[in-house]
């Protein structure tokens, strides 16, 4: 008799353990509080009730284009009003977690239906080559797709694997007032590399930091590579080919980047604490009026103007020239965008929602809310009133060039470009040593990733 209660206790305890070990329910997304839509964009469906569809969207972008959250909430609300059977869960990811969370979701084949991706190699490796996203060719008509800007960043093997959302470009931003203070002409910013170095000297003479940056968290090193190294290339494919082994990063065309960056360092162009501050702190030196120039991002321009109190304190220029490759005269721009996951039960519904994002009303609302150009040539340019943003849009649509950081393996970006910039500014390595280090990292990547190398060869063609 005594044994029965004991046995019961064991059974209950075992049951509790098994229940605890059961797969967890899919994480409930932090649903964003969508404002009530005020305008119905299309009549609600009538007739027999449609299947209830829930689309989960994991996204990033508020960090880069403030106002994106408001726009997305409104977009979701309007779409749901027009399609009452479709609801959404939107989850804003942190920068460090965006790719990690997706990799975990891809491994488990559950999670988002629509995922935000930065363009380029990260997208191709983590999403396309791993089979985690679907091509959109069969889901979105060709005529519609033709309007999206920078499709080449999401094209592989003849198919389009994602939909771009907005454009993110990298101008060299300058403060016209500080230029005047240093005796520089703000309406005629430096156009050549020597003019840039000379400008650094004049700015130093009046106690102004010429160019500010922060390398401690690494990101900025990759930006410098994208914006400065491009001038010897005709196309991003030259980088892809070099990564695949068709050329060496010690070749003069590729190695010159380190010498040019070193020239800026030797010319005293940078804040002395560049290695001990983060990217954001380096950027803050510009908005605080302590530095005259910033290798920046055009999605932040509206925020800069708000912080600095006036658009008059913001001027824009292309990176001054030293090289003669076709990319030397181009504006670094990438399309941030979306992918439809391969495990979603509702690929067509997901695609239709992405198409809705590109309707004229939504494109206009996007620009109004964020000040950032959408990745669509149907945006009405007359919406842009600020001269600086007009200039950015003109560059993005007339002289766009690839963001080079997107066309090298991730480990080369981190271990060579980011780390290399830190070593250059700490004085530990010469430009020649850094070029060799880049080549060593690429060789290591090729040894560890033979399958990816095959894809790089395809991409380089």
């Amino acid at each position, binding site marked *: 008799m005594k044994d029965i209660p004991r046995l019961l206790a064991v059974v209950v305890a075992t049951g509790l353990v098994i229940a605890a070990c059961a797969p967890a329910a899919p994480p409930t997304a932090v649903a964003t509080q969508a404002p009530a839509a005020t305008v119905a964009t299309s009549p609600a469906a009538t007739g027999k009730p449609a299947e209830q569809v829930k689309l989960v969207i994991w996204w990033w972008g508020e960090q880069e284009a403030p106002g994106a959250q408001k726009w997305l909430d409104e977009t979701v609300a309007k779409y749901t009003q027009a399609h009452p059977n479709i609801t959404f869960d939107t989850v804003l990811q942190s920068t460090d977690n965006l*790719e990690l969370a997706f990799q975990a979701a891809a491994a488990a084949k559950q999670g988002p239906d629509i995922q935000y991706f930065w363009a380029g190699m990260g997208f191709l490796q983590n999403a396309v080559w791993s089979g985690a996203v679907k091509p959109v060719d069969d889901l979105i008509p060709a005529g519609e797709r033709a309007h999206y800007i920078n499709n080449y960043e999401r094209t592989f093997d003849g198919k389009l694997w994602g939909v771009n959302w907005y454009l993110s470009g990298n101008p060299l931003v300058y403060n016209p007032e500080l230029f005047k203070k240093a005796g520089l002409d703000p309406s005629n910013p430096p156009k050549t590399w020597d003019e840039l170095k000379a400008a650094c000297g004049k700015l130093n003479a009046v106690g102004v930091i010429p160019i500010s940056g922060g390398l*401690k968290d690494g990101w900025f090193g990759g930006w410098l590579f994208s914006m400065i190294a491009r001038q010897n290339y005709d196309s991003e494919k030259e980088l892809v080919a070099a990564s695949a082994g068709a050329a060496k990063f010690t070749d003069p065309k590729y190695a010159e980047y380190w010498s040019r960056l070193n020239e800026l360092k030797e010319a005293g162009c940078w804040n002395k604490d560049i*290695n*001990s*501050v983060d990217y954001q702190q380096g950027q803050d030196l510009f908005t605080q009026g302590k530095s005259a120039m910033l290798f920046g991002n055009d999605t932040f321009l509206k925020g800069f103007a708000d912080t600095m109190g006036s658009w008059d304190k913001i001027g824009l220029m292309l990176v001054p020239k030293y090289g003669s490759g076709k990319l030397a005269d181009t504006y670094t721009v990438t399309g941030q965008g979306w992918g439809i996951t391969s495990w979603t039960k509702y690929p067509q519904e997901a695609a239709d929602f992405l198409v809705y994002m590109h309707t004229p009303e939504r494109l206009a609302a996007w620009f109004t809310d964020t000040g950032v150009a959408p990745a669509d040539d149907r945006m009405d340019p007359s919406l842009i009133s600020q001269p600086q943003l007009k200039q950015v849009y003109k560059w993005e649509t007339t002289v766009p060039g690839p963001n080079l950081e997107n066309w090298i393996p991730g480990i080369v970006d981190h271990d060579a470009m980011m780390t290399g910039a830190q070593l250059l500014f700490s004085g530990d390595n010469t430009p020649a040593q850094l070029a060799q280090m880049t080549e060593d990292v690429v060789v290591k990547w090729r040894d560890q990733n033979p399958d990816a190398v095959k894809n790089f060869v395809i991409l380089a063609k």
Partner: protein
Amino acid sequence: MLLSQPVDTMQYRKFEPWLYLSPALIALALIYGYPVARLLVLSLQRGSGSGASFAGISNYQQLFKDYLFLGAIRHNLTLLICVPIMIVIALILAVFLFDRIRGWRFYRSTLFLPYLLPITVVGLVFSYVFQLSGVLNDFLKLIGLGALALDWLGSTKLALPTLMFVIIWKEVGFGIVLFLARLMSVDEELFDAAKIDGANWWQLHWHITVPQLSTVIEFFAVISVITMLSWVFNYVFVMTGGGPGNATMVTELYVYLEGFEWNQMNIASSVSVLLLFVTGGFIFLELRVRERLGAVEAVG
């Protein structure tokens, strides 16, 4: 009475303890056993899932050709210098507190406070303090020591020692409290006898205190070694990200980067297995030391 019990009940009683242990054993197997086994399998493969192929020890061979991994090991071994420094500092401060200097209770709480703070908070605060234009350098310039205002986190030569300072600052409190607790259980007659024999402060503590604390010192040393080898990720990630120029790369961060940034799960698993064996060895050592500590306290 035993002879009157049926044989099957006796058989059942033999297995009964295992029945009660089974829920915990199942939980342990699922939470610890399966991930470790999976880690081992991944470390011997190339690729994962249906695309995985057996790679033998090639991942391990690649590791030892990777300058970044070798650098990470070197940095972890350098961090071991913190251990004797922490022991000495903790010992000295514990002795001062044991001597009941005025306000010793307040000092005890203050010295232990850093240990209670989250590493992320400590890392963030000190990363601002140690910037080239940070609080420390501003203070040094203010008191006329501007020559010492260095780029603590931005220099490849100074970043690791700076990290070590922060780790010592945070972790030493645990040692102080451990040593003080042990000191308070030492028989006071030993100290009285030594004083009567004319021992000075140094002789007293070298010949009485240190031997009495030997097992606790060993315990703290083992725990600290395990910390330096496999529990410094937060410090490095928050304060330097492994930089500048990989000057503060450690094995945990290497695992994180290989596994989650560069999708090299097999390489990351190999490093994890190596770390597991090394720290497992130290944990076994720590358990033996704790046994001895328990035996000493039982005798005391």
